[in-house]
C-alpha cells in the first residue's frame, strides 16, 4: 500500500508547474551567488545569498509551495475521500504526504544551500557546505510539517504561509527578544553554524545552541504532524 500512496503523493507534489516555479525561484540565490563570486570573489555570498535568499526566502517558499498542496489540493478537488475511505490509518496518510513533500523539497533546499555556500569565500568550504545542506534539509522538515498542517486547516494556506514567513520569521523574530527560540529559520541557521567552524558567523541573527536548535526542529515537526493527524481524524471529509 505504501508504494501506491507515496507514488500518488509524489506525482501530485511534483507537478510540472510547481517544480518549474521552484526551480525558477532557485535561480535567484544561485544567480546572485554567481554574480557575487564573479564580481567580488565570493564576498557577501553567505550573508546575502545563503542567509537572506536561501534560508530566508527559497527554503520556506519552496516548501510552502509543495506542502500546502499536499492536503489542500485533495480537499479542493474532493479527492481526500478517496484516501480516507481506504483501510489506512490517517496518521499513515499524513506521514506519506509529509514524506513526499520532503522527498522533493529537502534535496532541492539542501542542494541550493550547498551550491551557494561553495560559491562563497570560506576557507573550509566543503565542511561549511555540508553544514548548510544539513541545516536547510532539517529546516525543510520543520517547514513541511507546518505548511502541511496549514494546507489541511485552511483554504488560504498560501496566504497563511506568506504571512508566517514574512511577518513572523523575517520581521517579528528580529524584533522580539527571545523569539529566535521560536523560529525555524533560526533553527536552520543555528544548525548550520553548529556544524561548521566559523565561516557562517556572519549570520545576522544571534545563534542558539546546536542541541536546542535540533530540539526545536524536532518539536515543531512532531507537534505540527500531530496536529495534522488530529485534524484529519476529526474533520468532516468533504
Amino acid at each position, binding site marked *: *500500500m505504501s*508504494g*501506491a*500512496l507515496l507514488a*500518488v503523493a509524489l*506525482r*501530485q507534489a511534483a507537478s510540472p508547474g510547481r517544480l518549474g516555479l521552484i526551480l525558477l525561484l532557485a535561480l535567484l540565490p544561485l544567480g546572485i551567488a554567481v554574480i557575487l563570486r564573479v564580481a567580488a570573489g565570493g564576498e557577501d555570498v553567505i550573508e546575502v545569498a545563503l542567509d537572506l535568499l536561501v534560508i530566508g526566502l527559497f527554503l520556506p517558499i519552496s516548501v510552502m509551495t509543495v506542502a500546502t498542496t499536499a492536503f489542500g489540493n485533495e480537499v479542493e*478537488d*474532493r*479527492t481526500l*475521500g*478517496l*484516501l*480516507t*475511505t*481506504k*483501510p*489506512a*490509518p*490517517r496518521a499513515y496518510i499524513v506521514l506519506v504526504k509529509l514524506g513526499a513533500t520532503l522527498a522533493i523539497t529537502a534535496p532541492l533546499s539542501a542542494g541550493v544551500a550547498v551550491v551557494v555556500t561553495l560559491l562563497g569565500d570560506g576557507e573550509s568550504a566543503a565542511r561549511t557546505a555540508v553544514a548548510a545542506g544539513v541545516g536547510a534539509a532539517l529546516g525543510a522538515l520543520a517547514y513541511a510539517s507546518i505548511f502541511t498542517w496549514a494546507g489541511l486547516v485552511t483554504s488560504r494556506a498560501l496566504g497563511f504561509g506568506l504571512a508566517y514567513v514574512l511577518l513572523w520569521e523575517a520581521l517579528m523574530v528580529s524584533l522580539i527578544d527571545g523569539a529566535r527560540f521560536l523560529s525555524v529559520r533560526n533553527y536552520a541557521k543555528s544548525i548550520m553554524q553548529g556544524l561548521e567552524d566559523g565561516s557562517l558567523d556572519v549570520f545576522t541573527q544571534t545563534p542558539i545552541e546546536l542541541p536546542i536548535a535540533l530540539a526545536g526542529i524536532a518539536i515543531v515537526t512532531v507537534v505540527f504532524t500531530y496536529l495534522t493527524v488530529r485534524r484529519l*481524524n*476529526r474533520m*468532516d*471529509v*468533504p
Partner: protein
Amino acid sequence: MSEQAAPVIQINGLSKWYGSVVAVNDVSLEIYPGVTGILGPNGAGKTTLLHMMTGLAAPSEGEVRVLGQEVRGNPQLYRRIGVMSEHDALYPFMSGKEFVALAAKLQGVKSEAAVDQAVEDVGLTEAKDRKVGGYSRGMRQRIRLAATIVHDPEVLVLDEPLNGADPRQRIHFGELVREYAAGGKTVLISSHILEEVESLAGQILLMVSGKLAAAGNYRTIREKLDERPFKVRVVASNQREMAAALLANGVVESVSLEDDAIDVLTGNIGEFQTTVARLAQETGSRLYRVEPLDDSLESVFTYVVQG
C-alpha cells in the same frame, strides 16, 4: 431480505448540524442486504447521512454501526465497504486502469485480474489506458464505480451514482447493481429522482429536510405520490366558461380565477389531462397553456411527509 437477520447498517438517533443549520435530524433506520435507495430532493440531507454512514463525517448526535462496528475512526472496516461519493473526484493524470489499480492497492488487493475484472464490469476495457482527465462524465462515473467495487466489498455506498449517465449506461449500471446485490451484498444508492431507483431498490428511504420522511418499497411510495393532489395552471380564452366546465365536470377539486389564468387542484392528474382538452373544445375555448405548478420534487416529498 430477512428481518430477523442483524441489520448491515444500523442508525440510532442520528443528527448532524452545522452551526444553526440542521442537516440531518434524529434519523433512525436499519438497512439489510439487497438494494436500498435513499431518495430526496437536493438539500434533503442524503449526502450528509451517507457521509456519516461511511465515517467521513462525525455525527453531532446518535450512532452509526456498519457490519456491527463503529465506522468512524475504524479504517480497517473499509476493507468491507466500498464508498463512491457524489463528487467527480479523480486523479486526472492517471489512466482508468491506474486509477482502479490504485484503489486496489490501497485496499490490499494484489491481483491484477481483479482490476481488469472491475474495469470490464463497468464496460471500460477499451478505454482503460486513456487518462481519466479526458473521460466523459459518464465514463468518469463508471471508472469510479470500478474503483469502488474492485475489492469486492460487502457493503456498497453510492452517492448519486447515475449523475451524467446516459440511458444505456443506466441499464448497464442497473444490471451490475442487481447482480451485486443478488450475491447477498448490501447496496445503498442515493438519488433525487424516484424513477432512477424504481427498478433497482427493493427498499426506499425518503429524506426530506433532514428527516426520514417515509420508508417502504417502491409501490408504497409511488401510490402515495399518485394520490397527492396536483396544482395545474390553465391559460385559455373564455376563462370563466372553462372554469365552470371544469368544476361541473368534477375532475377538479377547486378552481381559482387569476388575472390571466385558471389555477386548479385535481386529485386525478391523468383524467384531468384528457378532460381539459375536451372541455376546451366543448366551451369553444382556445387552450394556450396547461402547466403543473408544483411538480417539483420538493412538493412531492412535502406531500408525502404531510400525508
